[in-house]
């Protein structure tokens, strides 16, 4: 009845630690990890289904600024803005979207002291109209 862990502990002295020095060394994440998602404004039709279905009420439909080009299918010129502080990353918005407009990434480093949301990312998917609309 002696502890059998002693051998393991001695072995552990000579091997690399399991823990990693996080900001210096990045965590290994699966390519299909459910990370930051945002709408592709070339595809989005502004149907608001993602905002209705979001269990955390993280999505608000916002008007596309006038200087940006919106597809003709998006008649109301609105697009979803995801508040990542509220988002629970369940990807319900991704799966209910009728036009598969959401772009998914495995980005998980979202800690910030200012509000993190998807408007900048979404607007970067479309182009600015020359001289406004």
């Amino acid at each position, binding site marked *: 009845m*002696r502890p059998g862990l002693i051998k393991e*502990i001695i072995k552990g002295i000579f091997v690399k630690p399991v823990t990693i020095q996080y900001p210096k060394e990045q965590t290994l994440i699966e390519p299909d990890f459910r990370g930051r998602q945002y709408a592709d404004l070339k595809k989005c039709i502004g149907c608001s289904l993602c905002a209705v279905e979001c*269990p955390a009420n993280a999505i608000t439909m916002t008007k596309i600024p006038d200087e940006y080009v919106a597809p003709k299918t998006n008649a109301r010129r609105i697009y979803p803005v995801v508040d990542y502080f509220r988002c629970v990353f369940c*990807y*319900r918005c991704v799966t209910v979207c009728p036009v598969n407009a959401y772009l998914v990434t495995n980005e998980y480093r979202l800690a910030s002291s200012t509000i993190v949301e998807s408007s900048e990312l979404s607007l970067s998917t479309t182009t600015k109209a020359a001289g406004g609309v």
Partner: protein
Amino acid sequence: MVEVTHLIEIPMAVEIPVGPQHPALHEPLLLKLYADGERIIKVDVMTGYNHRGIEKLTEKNTFYRDIFIIGRVCGICNAVHTNCYVRALEYILDVDPPPRAKYLRVLSMELERLHSHMLVLAVTAELAGYETLFMYLMKDREYVMKSKEILTGQRVMADYMMVGGVRRDIDEVKTSRILDIIKRVEERIKYYHKIFQEDVTINRRLRDTGRIKPREALAYSLVGPVVRGSGIKTDIRIQDKYDAYGDIPFNVITEDYGDSYARAMVRFGELYESINMVRYILTHLPQGNPVPDERKLPRRFPVGESYAAVEAPRGELTYYVSSSGGDKPYRVKIRTPSLNNIVNSAFTYVDQMIADVPIILGSFDPCISCMERAVITDLRRGVRYQVPLKELGGVRK
């Protein structure tokens, strides 16, 4: 001059609050101990520090939004919670998921059982004062979490169940990776099992603490590994054969003695069974498409009610869902295993040492966030059965 005729001895019953914030408890629960010296006379279990009102919240949201809210009832057993709720919805809709989806559901739930049992065994070791073993067990638990990330897309919050199937499929690369992880984890679990059997610290602290006789286990309606540790063979996976549990071979593990050590051993036995089941599922996975198109699912539900039960890592978990037509449930009732195991188990602490209280509580695998939903009846009664000091012993003769 007054003649002394009587000697009154008043035993000191000290009231010791353990919790809600206490180094031995990881979650907010108050155990009010009444101790005579080192020996416990009586325990009051006080809950209600973590009430979030999720049952009410589900009534305000649609059936589909509720699937993700239900997943947040409990972090560790989120897949079993959603599975139970989703199956209750499927009974109302009369939908039968394809066989591949059923297998994948069982796979995610068994991976969950693996990491849940590894967690509670690690916590047991920690409460027994063996923190090195805690660290090592948690290190190997991380591999199981990785396999869950490979399968579902996140380490903890699976969000894997959907009415009519699961939310993502598995390919051959992922299958072989999970099989590799499981092989590595199995070797480690065998090693830790040996340590639990042979180690002095673990044996002295766990043996003979918190013994529950089979009759008591039934009388207080305890569930899960706790009742199986007292020699009663009960398991919803066998009795109900929900999802693919009818096709997958496994055994129900029981131990006879009923102390904390027996409960730990039941959990080790179930770890081996879960590993075998995971291996069986990944090698016998049926063909087909397990992922339903979430855009085509019916938005309005027919009038009806349903009741579903699963064997969560902590025991029998049941959901009652009532639909009055429309897109929101009329009522969702959740009965979690921890509620039975923690609130009803105050009798096990009596006549034990104060130092053993965390170990006994740890051996029940408490999940406070799970059980905080049904606490209202306790609070409303608000009766405290306190015995005055003079009645406890040393009464004037």
